[in-house]
Protein backbone atom coordinates (compact mmCIF):
# COMPACT_ATOMS: atom_id res chain seq x y z
CA UNK A 1 0.00 0.00 0.00
CA UNK A 2 1.34 3.38 -1.03
CA UNK A 3 -0.54 5.73 1.31
CA UNK A 4 -2.06 5.08 4.71
CA UNK A 5 -5.26 7.07 4.33
CA UNK A 6 -6.55 5.74 7.64
CA UNK A 7 -4.11 8.05 9.43
CA UNK A 8 -6.06 11.09 8.25
CA UNK A 9 -9.63 9.77 8.26
CA UNK A 10 -11.38 13.08 8.93
CA UNK A 11 -9.12 15.31 6.81
CA UNK A 12 -10.38 16.43 3.43
CA UNK A 13 -8.29 14.70 0.77
CA UNK A 14 -9.64 16.48 -2.29
CA UNK A 15 -11.98 19.27 -3.34
CA UNK A 16 -12.91 19.78 -6.97
CA UNK A 17 -13.92 22.96 -8.77
CA UNK A 18 -17.57 21.88 -8.81
CA UNK A 19 -17.77 21.71 -5.04
CA UNK A 20 -17.47 17.93 -4.58
CA UNK A 21 -15.05 16.70 -1.93
CA UNK A 22 -13.84 13.49 -0.32
CA UNK A 23 -12.35 12.88 3.10
CA UNK A 24 -9.44 10.47 3.44
CA UNK A 25 -11.87 7.92 4.91
CA UNK A 26 -14.12 8.28 1.87
CA UNK A 27 -11.21 8.10 -0.53
CA UNK A 28 -10.11 4.87 1.11
CA UNK A 29 -13.61 3.46 0.80
CA UNK A 30 -13.87 4.48 -2.87
CA UNK A 31 -10.55 2.76 -3.50
CA UNK A 32 -11.77 -0.51 -2.06
CA UNK A 33 -14.94 -0.41 -4.16
CA UNK A 34 -13.06 0.28 -7.38
CA UNK A 35 -10.31 -2.27 -6.82
CA UNK A 36 -12.87 -4.91 -5.93
CA UNK A 37 -14.34 -4.45 -9.40
CA UNK A 38 -10.90 -4.65 -11.00
CA UNK A 39 -10.54 -8.00 -9.23
CA UNK A 40 -6.85 -8.34 -8.48
CA UNK A 41 -3.56 -7.11 -9.82
CA UNK A 42 -3.68 -6.15 -13.49
CA UNK A 43 -2.87 -3.40 -15.98
CA UNK A 44 -5.30 -0.47 -16.38
CA UNK A 45 -5.01 2.42 -18.82
CA UNK A 46 -6.07 5.51 -16.90
CA UNK A 47 -7.23 8.36 -19.16
CA UNK A 48 -6.38 11.38 -17.09
CA UNK A 49 -7.95 14.78 -16.54
CA UNK A 50 -7.81 16.85 -13.39
CA UNK A 51 -11.26 15.67 -12.30
CA UNK A 52 -12.56 13.51 -9.45
CA UNK A 53 -12.93 10.28 -11.47
CA UNK A 54 -9.37 10.40 -12.68
CA UNK A 55 -8.03 11.27 -9.22
CA UNK A 56 -9.95 8.50 -7.44
CA UNK A 57 -8.85 6.03 -10.14
CA UNK A 58 -5.19 6.86 -9.72
CA UNK A 59 -5.09 6.75 -5.92
CA UNK A 60 -7.22 3.60 -5.78
CA UNK A 61 -5.20 1.66 -8.32
CA UNK A 62 -1.81 2.54 -6.85
CA UNK A 63 -2.98 1.80 -3.31
CA UNK A 64 -4.74 -1.40 -4.36
CA UNK A 65 -1.81 -2.94 -6.26
CA UNK A 66 -3.44 -2.42 -9.67
CA UNK A 67 -0.94 -0.95 -12.16
CA UNK A 68 -2.21 2.20 -13.89
CA UNK A 69 -0.64 3.52 -17.09
CA UNK A 70 -1.30 7.24 -16.94
CA UNK A 71 -2.33 8.73 -20.29
CA UNK A 72 -3.86 12.04 -21.26
CA UNK A 73 -7.60 11.82 -21.90
CA UNK A 74 -6.96 14.12 -24.88
CA UNK A 75 -4.33 11.92 -26.47
CA UNK A 76 -4.24 11.31 -30.20
CA UNK A 77 -6.56 8.32 -30.98
CA UNK A 78 -3.96 6.68 -33.24
CA UNK A 79 -1.43 6.85 -30.44
CA UNK A 80 -3.91 5.41 -27.97
CA UNK A 81 -4.62 2.55 -30.38
CA UNK A 82 -0.89 1.79 -30.71
CA UNK A 83 -0.44 1.65 -26.92
CA UNK A 84 -3.62 -0.40 -26.48
CA UNK A 85 -2.44 -3.04 -28.95
CA UNK A 86 1.12 -3.08 -27.61
CA UNK A 87 0.21 -3.48 -23.91
CA UNK A 88 -3.20 -5.20 -23.94
CA UNK A 89 -4.53 -3.72 -20.66
CA UNK A 90 -7.26 -5.60 -18.83
CA UNK A 91 -9.25 -2.40 -18.21
CA UNK A 92 -9.55 1.20 -19.32
CA UNK A 93 -10.54 3.78 -16.68
CA UNK A 94 -11.95 6.60 -18.75
CA UNK A 95 -14.44 9.47 -18.84
CA UNK A 96 -17.95 8.10 -19.44
CA UNK A 97 -18.10 9.52 -22.97
CA UNK A 98 -15.05 7.46 -24.02
CA UNK A 99 -16.00 4.66 -26.39
CA UNK A 100 -14.14 1.42 -26.91
CA UNK A 101 -15.05 -1.46 -29.17
CA UNK A 102 -15.51 -4.93 -27.70
CA UNK A 103 -15.52 -3.69 -24.14
CA UNK A 104 -18.03 -3.89 -21.33
CA UNK A 105 -18.55 -1.50 -18.46
CA UNK A 106 -17.81 -3.06 -15.06
CA UNK A 107 -18.29 -0.03 -12.84
CA UNK A 108 -19.16 3.64 -13.05
CA UNK A 109 -18.30 6.37 -10.55
CA UNK A 110 -17.64 10.13 -10.65
CA UNK A 111 -18.29 10.31 -14.39
CA UNK A 112 -15.66 7.65 -15.10
CA UNK A 113 -16.16 4.08 -16.25
CA UNK A 114 -14.12 0.93 -15.79
CA UNK A 115 -14.21 -0.73 -19.20
CA UNK A 116 -13.15 -4.34 -19.44
CA UNK A 117 -11.22 -5.11 -22.63
CA UNK A 118 -11.21 -8.48 -24.42
CA UNK A 119 -7.56 -9.06 -23.44
CA UNK A 120 -8.20 -10.52 -19.97
CA UNK A 121 -5.00 -11.25 -18.07
CA UNK A 122 -2.87 -11.48 -21.24
CA UNK A 123 -0.32 -9.01 -19.88
CA UNK A 124 1.78 -10.22 -16.97
CA UNK A 125 3.34 -7.83 -14.49
CA UNK A 126 6.56 -7.93 -12.50
CA UNK A 127 5.83 -7.89 -8.75
CA UNK A 128 7.74 -4.62 -8.29
CA UNK A 129 5.83 -2.65 -10.91
CA UNK A 130 3.49 0.04 -9.54
CA UNK A 131 2.94 2.62 -12.27
CA UNK A 132 3.61 3.41 -15.92
CA UNK A 133 4.19 6.91 -17.26
CA UNK A 134 5.12 8.27 -20.67
CA UNK A 135 8.27 10.39 -20.89
CA UNK A 136 6.39 13.30 -22.43
CA UNK A 137 3.06 14.41 -23.75
CA UNK A 138 4.30 13.44 -27.16
CA UNK A 139 5.03 11.20 -29.96
CA UNK A 140 5.60 8.00 -31.79
CA UNK A 141 6.90 4.97 -29.97
CA UNK A 142 4.74 3.26 -27.34
CA UNK A 143 7.28 3.78 -24.58
CA UNK A 144 6.64 3.84 -20.85
CA UNK A 145 8.81 4.48 -17.82
CA UNK A 146 8.40 1.65 -15.28
CA UNK A 147 8.08 2.92 -11.71
CA UNK A 148 8.08 0.68 -8.67
CA UNK A 149 6.35 1.05 -5.36
CA UNK A 150 9.75 1.67 -3.75
CA UNK A 151 10.56 4.37 -6.31
CA UNK A 152 7.40 6.30 -5.51
CA UNK A 153 7.82 5.78 -1.78
CA UNK A 154 11.44 7.00 -1.82
CA UNK A 155 10.67 10.07 -3.92
CA UNK A 156 7.60 10.93 -1.85
CA UNK A 157 9.62 10.73 1.39
CA UNK A 158 12.30 13.02 -0.07
CA UNK A 159 9.79 15.58 -1.33
CA UNK A 160 7.82 15.65 1.92
CA UNK A 161 11.10 16.22 3.77
CA UNK A 162 12.62 19.02 1.70
CA UNK A 163 9.35 20.89 1.20
CA UNK A 164 8.49 20.32 4.89
CA UNK A 165 4.91 19.49 3.90
CA UNK A 166 2.14 19.32 6.48
CA UNK A 167 -1.57 18.51 6.49
CA UNK A 168 -2.31 22.24 6.36
CA UNK A 169 -1.16 22.47 2.73
CA UNK A 170 -3.73 23.08 -0.01
CA UNK A 171 -1.98 22.71 -3.37
CA UNK A 172 -4.02 23.62 -6.46
CA UNK A 173 -3.48 21.56 -9.61
CA UNK A 174 -1.84 23.33 -12.55
CA UNK A 175 -0.35 20.27 -14.25
CA UNK A 176 -1.92 17.10 -15.61
CA UNK A 177 -1.77 13.94 -13.48
CA UNK A 178 -0.33 11.94 -16.39
CA UNK A 179 2.70 14.23 -16.12
CA UNK A 180 5.31 13.19 -13.56
CA UNK A 181 5.59 16.61 -11.89
CA UNK A 182 1.83 16.93 -11.52
CA UNK A 183 1.64 13.43 -10.10
CA UNK A 184 4.45 14.07 -7.60
CA UNK A 185 2.42 16.94 -6.14
CA UNK A 186 -0.49 14.55 -5.53
CA UNK A 187 1.76 11.79 -4.18
CA UNK A 188 3.58 13.95 -1.66
CA UNK A 189 0.56 15.86 -0.37
CA UNK A 190 -1.59 12.73 0.03
CA UNK A 191 1.20 11.33 2.16
CA UNK A 192 0.82 14.05 4.81
CA UNK A 193 -2.97 14.31 4.87
CA UNK A 194 -3.14 17.62 2.97
CA UNK A 195 -6.05 18.78 0.77
CA UNK A 196 -5.70 18.67 -3.01
CA UNK A 197 -7.60 21.39 -4.90
CA UNK A 198 -8.50 19.72 -8.15
CA UNK A 199 -9.21 21.72 -11.29
CA UNK A 200 -8.89 21.12 -14.99
CA UNK A 201 -8.72 24.88 -15.62
CA UNK A 202 -5.48 26.68 -16.25
CA UNK A 203 -3.83 29.85 -14.95
CA UNK A 204 -5.14 31.81 -17.95
CA UNK A 205 -8.75 31.14 -16.93
CA UNK A 206 -10.91 33.08 -14.55
CA UNK A 207 -12.48 29.93 -13.07
CA UNK A 208 -9.03 28.84 -11.93
CA UNK A 209 -8.46 31.97 -9.87
CA UNK A 210 -11.99 31.99 -8.49
CA UNK A 211 -11.44 28.42 -7.25
CA UNK A 212 -7.98 29.38 -5.98
CA UNK A 213 -9.41 32.20 -3.83
CA UNK A 214 -12.54 30.39 -2.66
CA UNK A 215 -10.54 27.41 -1.46
CA UNK A 216 -7.47 29.29 -0.19
CA UNK A 217 -4.78 27.52 -2.20
CA UNK A 218 -1.37 27.57 -0.52
CA UNK A 219 0.86 26.43 -3.38
CA UNK A 220 1.11 25.55 -7.04
CA UNK A 221 3.73 24.19 -9.39
CA UNK A 222 4.64 25.51 -12.81
CA UNK A 223 6.81 24.68 -15.78
CA UNK A 224 8.85 27.55 -17.28
CA UNK A 225 6.01 28.37 -19.66
CA UNK A 226 3.58 28.75 -16.74
CA UNK A 227 5.84 31.39 -15.21
CA UNK A 228 6.19 33.19 -18.55
CA UNK A 229 2.42 33.28 -18.84
CA UNK A 230 2.00 34.52 -15.28
CA UNK A 231 4.56 37.17 -15.98
CA UNK A 232 2.71 38.44 -19.04
CA UNK A 233 -0.46 38.48 -16.97
CA UNK A 234 1.32 40.62 -14.36
CA UNK A 235 0.67 37.95 -11.75
CA UNK A 236 2.70 39.62 -9.01
CA UNK A 237 0.03 42.32 -8.75
CA UNK A 238 -2.61 39.77 -7.77
CA UNK A 239 -3.94 39.65 -4.24
CA UNK A 240 -3.56 36.03 -3.12
CA UNK A 241 -3.21 36.03 0.67
CA UNK A 242 -3.39 32.24 1.02
CA UNK A 243 -0.46 31.55 -1.31
CA UNK A 244 2.77 30.63 0.50
CA UNK A 245 4.83 28.52 -1.92
CA UNK A 246 5.61 28.46 -5.65
CA UNK A 247 7.49 25.50 -7.08
CA UNK A 248 9.04 25.25 -10.53
CA UNK A 249 10.29 22.30 -12.58
CA UNK A 250 9.93 20.86 -16.07
CA UNK A 251 12.81 22.76 -17.67
CA UNK A 252 15.06 25.67 -16.90
CA UNK A 253 13.39 28.92 -15.91
CA UNK A 254 14.80 32.02 -17.64
CA UNK A 255 17.27 33.57 -15.16
CA UNK A 256 15.50 36.94 -15.26
CA UNK A 257 12.20 35.28 -14.32
CA UNK A 258 13.91 33.23 -11.62
CA UNK A 259 15.24 36.51 -10.19
CA UNK A 260 11.94 38.32 -10.50
CA UNK A 261 9.93 35.64 -8.74
CA UNK A 262 12.61 35.09 -6.10
CA UNK A 263 12.55 38.82 -5.29
CA UNK A 264 8.78 38.91 -5.24
CA UNK A 265 8.70 35.94 -2.87
CA UNK A 266 11.29 37.52 -0.60
CA UNK A 267 9.36 40.80 -0.51
CA UNK A 268 6.00 39.16 0.19
CA UNK A 269 7.15 36.47 2.62
CA UNK A 270 6.69 33.55 0.24
CA UNK A 271 8.92 30.72 -0.94
CA UNK A 272 10.08 30.05 -4.48
CA UNK A 273 11.47 26.55 -4.87
CA UNK A 274 13.19 25.77 -8.16
CA UNK A 275 13.55 22.03 -8.75
CA UNK A 276 14.93 19.51 -11.20
CA UNK A 277 13.74 16.06 -12.16
CA UNK A 278 12.79 13.50 -14.77
CA UNK A 279 10.18 10.82 -15.13
CA UNK A 280 13.09 8.32 -15.12
CA UNK A 281 13.83 9.39 -11.52
CA UNK A 282 10.14 8.98 -10.55
CA UNK A 283 9.89 12.79 -10.49
CA UNK A 284 12.43 14.76 -8.50
CA UNK A 285 16.25 14.72 -8.23
CA UNK A 286 17.17 18.19 -7.01
CA UNK A 287 15.81 21.36 -5.43
CA UNK A 288 17.14 24.81 -4.69
CA UNK A 289 16.37 25.59 -1.04
CA UNK A 290 14.15 28.69 -1.00
CA UNK A 291 16.60 30.59 1.22
CA UNK A 292 19.13 30.32 -1.62
CA UNK A 293 16.80 31.21 -4.47
CA UNK A 294 18.14 34.76 -4.84
CA UNK A 295 21.76 33.88 -4.20
CA UNK A 296 21.84 31.06 -6.78
CA UNK A 297 19.90 32.42 -9.76
CA UNK A 298 19.89 29.91 -12.64
CA UNK A 299 20.87 26.95 -10.43
CA UNK A 300 18.62 23.93 -9.86
CA UNK A 301 20.20 23.34 -6.47
CA UNK A 302 21.34 20.24 -4.66
CA UNK A 303 20.32 16.59 -4.67
CA UNK A 304 17.15 15.75 -2.72
CA UNK A 305 17.47 13.93 0.63
CA UNK A 306 18.53 10.35 -0.12
CA UNK A 307 19.97 11.16 -3.55
CA UNK A 308 23.37 12.22 -4.90
CA UNK A 309 24.93 13.61 -8.07
CA UNK A 310 28.17 12.98 -9.94
CA UNK A 311 29.61 14.83 -12.92
CA UNK A 312 31.31 12.69 -15.56
CA UNK A 313 33.90 13.93 -18.06
CA UNK A 314 34.28 12.85 -21.70
CA UNK A 315 36.59 9.96 -20.71
CA UNK A 316 34.13 8.65 -18.15
CA UNK A 317 36.07 9.98 -15.15
CA UNK A 318 34.63 11.84 -12.18
CA UNK A 319 34.92 15.63 -12.16
CA UNK A 320 35.91 16.95 -8.75
CA UNK A 321 36.78 20.58 -9.53
CA UNK A 322 34.09 23.27 -9.41
CA UNK A 323 32.66 25.01 -12.50
CA UNK A 324 33.60 22.27 -14.98
CA UNK A 325 30.92 20.94 -17.33
CA UNK A 326 30.20 17.24 -17.32
CA UNK A 327 27.38 14.80 -17.81
CA UNK A 328 25.11 14.64 -14.80
CA UNK A 329 24.63 11.24 -13.17
CA UNK A 330 22.16 10.66 -10.34
CA UNK A 331 21.96 7.95 -7.69
CA UNK A 332 19.00 7.25 -5.45
CA UNK A 333 16.19 4.86 -4.63
CA UNK A 334 13.85 6.90 -6.83
CA UNK A 335 15.72 5.89 -10.01
CA UNK A 336 13.08 3.90 -11.86
CA UNK A 337 13.28 0.29 -13.01
CA UNK A 338 13.75 1.10 -16.72
CA UNK A 339 11.66 1.50 -19.86
CA UNK A 340 9.05 -0.67 -21.50
CA UNK A 341 8.39 -0.70 -25.23
CA UNK A 342 5.87 -3.54 -25.18
CA UNK A 343 3.89 -5.84 -22.90
CA UNK A 344 6.70 -8.36 -22.35
CA UNK A 345 8.85 -5.63 -20.77
CA UNK A 346 6.36 -5.34 -17.91
CA UNK A 347 7.79 -8.59 -16.53
CA UNK A 348 11.30 -7.12 -16.37
CA UNK A 349 12.92 -6.28 -13.05
CA UNK A 350 15.22 -3.41 -12.14
CA UNK A 351 17.59 -2.55 -14.99
CA UNK A 352 19.10 0.63 -13.56
CA UNK A 353 20.01 -0.38 -9.99
CA UNK A 354 19.67 3.11 -8.63
CA UNK A 355 21.86 4.88 -11.19
CA UNK A 356 20.54 7.28 -13.83
CA UNK A 357 22.49 8.94 -16.63
CA UNK A 358 20.36 12.07 -16.89
CA UNK A 359 21.53 13.10 -20.36
CA UNK A 360 21.89 16.65 -19.04
CA UNK A 361 25.18 18.55 -19.02
CA UNK A 362 25.79 20.41 -15.76
CA UNK A 363 28.28 22.29 -13.62
CA UNK A 364 28.76 22.31 -9.86
CA UNK A 365 29.87 25.53 -8.18
CA UNK A 366 32.28 25.81 -5.25
CA UNK A 367 29.35 25.64 -2.81
CA UNK A 368 28.10 22.40 -4.32
CA UNK A 369 25.11 23.84 -6.26
CA UNK A 370 24.34 22.47 -9.71
CA UNK A 371 23.39 24.34 -12.88
CA UNK A 372 22.16 22.71 -16.08
CA UNK A 373 24.08 24.09 -19.05
CA UNK A 374 22.94 21.85 -21.91
CA UNK A 375 21.76 18.47 -23.06
CA UNK A 376 23.57 15.48 -24.39
CA UNK A 377 20.54 14.08 -26.17
CA UNK A 378 18.57 15.77 -28.91
CA UNK A 379 15.38 16.80 -27.23
CA UNK A 380 13.55 19.98 -26.34
CA UNK A 381 11.14 20.89 -23.61
CA UNK A 382 7.97 22.21 -25.21
CA UNK A 383 5.73 23.89 -22.63
CA UNK A 384 7.20 21.47 -20.08
CA UNK A 385 6.86 18.36 -22.26
CA UNK A 386 9.88 16.50 -23.50
CA UNK A 387 9.98 16.23 -27.28
CA UNK A 388 12.62 14.02 -28.86
CA UNK A 389 13.84 15.66 -32.09
CA UNK A 390 15.03 12.41 -33.66
CA UNK A 391 11.57 11.00 -33.06
CA UNK A 392 9.76 14.00 -34.59
CA UNK A 393 12.07 13.72 -37.61
CA UNK A 394 11.20 10.05 -38.01
CA UNK A 395 7.50 10.83 -37.80
CA UNK A 396 7.78 13.52 -40.45
CA UNK A 397 9.82 11.31 -42.75
CA UNK A 398 7.23 8.56 -42.47
CA UNK A 399 4.36 10.94 -43.20
CA UNK A 400 6.15 13.04 -45.87
CA UNK A 401 8.46 10.52 -47.54
CA UNK A 402 9.11 12.75 -50.57
CA UNK A 403 10.47 15.67 -48.54
CA UNK A 404 13.78 16.15 -46.81
CA UNK A 405 13.30 17.44 -43.28
CA UNK A 406 15.24 17.99 -40.06
CA UNK A 407 14.19 19.25 -36.61
CA UNK A 408 16.04 21.68 -34.36
CA UNK A 409 15.44 24.75 -32.21
CA UNK A 410 15.40 25.44 -28.50
CA UNK A 411 12.94 25.05 -25.59
CA UNK A 412 9.38 26.13 -26.50
CA UNK A 413 10.56 26.75 -30.09
CA UNK A 414 10.86 23.73 -32.39
CA UNK A 415 12.02 24.54 -35.92
CA UNK A 416 11.30 22.38 -38.95
CA UNK A 417 13.93 22.72 -41.67
CA UNK A 418 13.06 21.44 -45.12
CA UNK A 419 14.13 21.80 -48.72
CA UNK A 420 10.47 21.38 -49.66
CA UNK A 421 9.07 24.80 -48.81
CA UNK A 422 5.57 23.90 -50.03
CA UNK A 423 5.30 20.99 -47.59
CA UNK A 424 6.37 22.93 -44.49
CA UNK A 425 2.91 24.20 -43.41
CA UNK A 426 1.45 20.68 -43.63
CA UNK A 427 4.43 19.27 -41.72
CA UNK A 428 4.00 21.85 -39.01
CA UNK A 429 0.27 21.17 -38.66
CA UNK A 430 0.91 17.43 -38.60
CA UNK A 431 3.48 17.68 -35.82
CA UNK A 432 1.31 19.99 -33.71
CA UNK A 433 -1.58 17.57 -34.04
CA UNK A 434 0.44 14.44 -33.29
CA UNK A 435 2.23 15.90 -30.28
CA UNK A 436 -0.92 17.59 -28.99
CA UNK A 437 1.09 20.78 -28.46
CA UNK A 438 0.00 24.25 -29.53
CA UNK A 439 1.17 25.09 -33.05
CA UNK A 440 2.55 28.45 -31.94
CA UNK A 441 5.60 26.59 -30.60
CA UNK A 442 6.45 25.20 -34.06
CA UNK A 443 8.41 27.22 -36.61
CA UNK A 444 9.40 26.49 -40.18
CA UNK A 445 12.40 27.41 -42.26
CA UNK A 446 12.96 26.58 -45.91
CA UNK A 447 16.59 25.71 -46.70
CA UNK A 448 18.39 24.95 -49.97
CA UNK A 449 19.91 21.81 -48.46
CA UNK A 450 20.07 19.91 -45.18
CA UNK A 451 23.79 20.04 -44.33
CA UNK A 452 25.29 16.56 -43.85
CA UNK A 453 28.70 15.07 -43.22
CA UNK A 454 30.35 12.42 -45.42
CA UNK A 455 28.62 9.64 -43.52
CA UNK A 456 25.25 11.19 -44.29
CA UNK A 457 24.62 12.40 -40.74
CA UNK A 458 22.81 15.71 -40.38
CA UNK A 459 25.04 18.53 -39.15
CA UNK A 460 22.63 20.15 -36.73
CA UNK A 461 25.07 22.83 -35.65
CA UNK A 462 25.25 24.01 -39.28
CA UNK A 463 21.49 23.80 -39.59
CA UNK A 464 20.84 25.95 -36.53
CA UNK A 465 22.65 28.83 -38.26
CA UNK A 466 19.64 29.15 -40.54
CA UNK A 467 17.33 29.57 -37.56
CA UNK A 468 16.66 33.00 -36.07
Amino acid at each position, binding site marked *: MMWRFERYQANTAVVDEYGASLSYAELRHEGRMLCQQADGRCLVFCLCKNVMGSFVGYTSFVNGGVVPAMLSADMDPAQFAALYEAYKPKYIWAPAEFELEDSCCRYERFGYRLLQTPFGDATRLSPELALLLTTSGSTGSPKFVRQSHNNIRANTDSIVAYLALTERERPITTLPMNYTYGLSILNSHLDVGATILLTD*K*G*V*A*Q*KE*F*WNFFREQGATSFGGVP*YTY*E*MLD*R*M*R*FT*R*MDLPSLTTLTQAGGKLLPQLHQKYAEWCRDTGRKLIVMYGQCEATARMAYLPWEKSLEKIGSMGIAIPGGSFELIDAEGGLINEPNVTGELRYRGDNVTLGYATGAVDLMKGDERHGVLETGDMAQRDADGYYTIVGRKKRFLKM*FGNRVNLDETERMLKAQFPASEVACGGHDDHLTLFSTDEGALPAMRAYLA*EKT*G*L*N*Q*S*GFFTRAVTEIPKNDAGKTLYVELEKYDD
Partner: protein
Amino acid sequence: MTNQEKYVNAFVQALEVSAEEAPALVYGESRAWDSVGHMTLIAALEDAFDVMMEMDDIIDLSSFEKGKEILRKYDVEI
Protein backbone atom coordinates in the same frame (compact mmCIF):
# COMPACT_ATOMS: atom_id res chain seq x y z
CA MET B 1 -8.76 47.88 -41.80
CA THR B 2 -11.87 48.29 -39.66
CA ASN B 3 -11.82 47.31 -36.01
CA GLN B 4 -13.98 44.32 -36.85
CA GLU B 5 -11.43 43.17 -39.43
CA LYS B 6 -8.53 43.76 -37.05
CA TYR B 7 -10.33 41.80 -34.35
CA VAL B 8 -11.03 38.79 -36.55
CA ASN B 9 -7.52 38.99 -37.94
CA ALA B 10 -6.01 38.70 -34.44
CA PHE B 11 -7.87 35.39 -33.96
CA VAL B 12 -6.89 34.17 -37.42
CA GLN B 13 -3.22 34.98 -36.87
CA ALA B 14 -2.90 33.87 -33.25
CA LEU B 15 -5.00 30.71 -33.32
CA GLU B 16 -4.50 29.82 -36.99
CA VAL B 17 -8.17 29.44 -37.77
CA SER B 18 -10.19 30.77 -40.69
CA ALA B 19 -12.14 34.03 -40.45
CA GLU B 20 -15.34 31.96 -40.73
CA GLU B 21 -14.40 29.74 -37.76
CA ALA B 22 -13.35 32.62 -35.48
CA PRO B 23 -16.78 33.86 -34.23
CA ALA B 24 -17.70 30.46 -32.76
CA LEU B 25 -14.49 30.03 -30.79
CA VAL B 26 -14.47 29.41 -27.04
CA TYR B 27 -11.42 29.00 -24.81
CA GLY B 28 -10.58 25.36 -24.12
CA GLU B 29 -12.96 23.93 -26.69
CA SER B 30 -10.48 23.72 -29.52
CA ARG B 31 -6.89 22.59 -29.46
CA ALA B 32 -5.73 25.89 -30.97
CA TRP B 33 -7.20 27.93 -28.10
CA ASP B 34 -5.40 26.37 -25.15
CA SER B 35 -3.31 28.24 -22.59
CA VAL B 36 -0.46 28.72 -25.08
CA GLY B 37 -2.85 29.91 -27.80
CA HIS B 38 -4.52 32.23 -25.28
CA MET B 39 -1.34 34.16 -24.56
CA THR B 40 -0.61 34.44 -28.29
CA LEU B 41 -4.13 35.78 -28.80
CA ILE B 42 -3.85 38.33 -25.99
CA ALA B 43 -0.57 39.59 -27.44
CA ALA B 44 -2.15 39.85 -30.90
CA LEU B 45 -5.15 41.81 -29.57
CA GLU B 46 -2.94 44.12 -27.51
CA ASP B 47 -0.83 44.82 -30.59
CA ALA B 48 -3.79 45.29 -32.92
CA PHE B 49 -5.51 47.85 -30.71
CA ASP B 50 -2.49 49.25 -28.91
CA VAL B 51 -3.87 48.47 -25.46
CA MET B 52 -2.49 46.73 -22.36
CA MET B 53 -5.04 44.52 -20.72
CA GLU B 54 -5.44 44.02 -16.99
CA MET B 55 -5.00 40.50 -15.61
CA ASP B 56 -8.70 40.25 -14.74
CA ASP B 57 -9.57 40.96 -18.35
CA ILE B 58 -6.97 38.55 -19.71
CA ILE B 59 -8.43 35.68 -17.72
CA ASP B 60 -11.98 36.75 -18.48
CA LEU B 61 -11.54 36.71 -22.25
CA SER B 62 -13.00 33.28 -22.79
CA SER B 63 -14.78 33.58 -26.16
CA PHE B 64 -14.85 35.58 -29.37
CA GLU B 65 -17.92 37.48 -28.17
CA LYS B 66 -16.58 38.11 -24.66
CA GLY B 67 -13.45 39.65 -26.15
CA LYS B 68 -15.47 42.39 -27.84
CA GLU B 69 -17.13 43.28 -24.56
CA ILE B 70 -13.77 43.45 -22.78
CA LEU B 71 -12.14 45.62 -25.43
CA ARG B 72 -14.96 48.12 -25.01
CA LYS B 73 -13.48 48.90 -21.58
CA TYR B 74 -10.35 50.03 -23.38
CA ASP B 75 -12.42 52.28 -25.68
CA VAL B 76 -12.22 49.87 -28.58
CA GLU B 77 -15.55 49.49 -30.37
CA ILE B 78 -15.87 46.47 -32.60
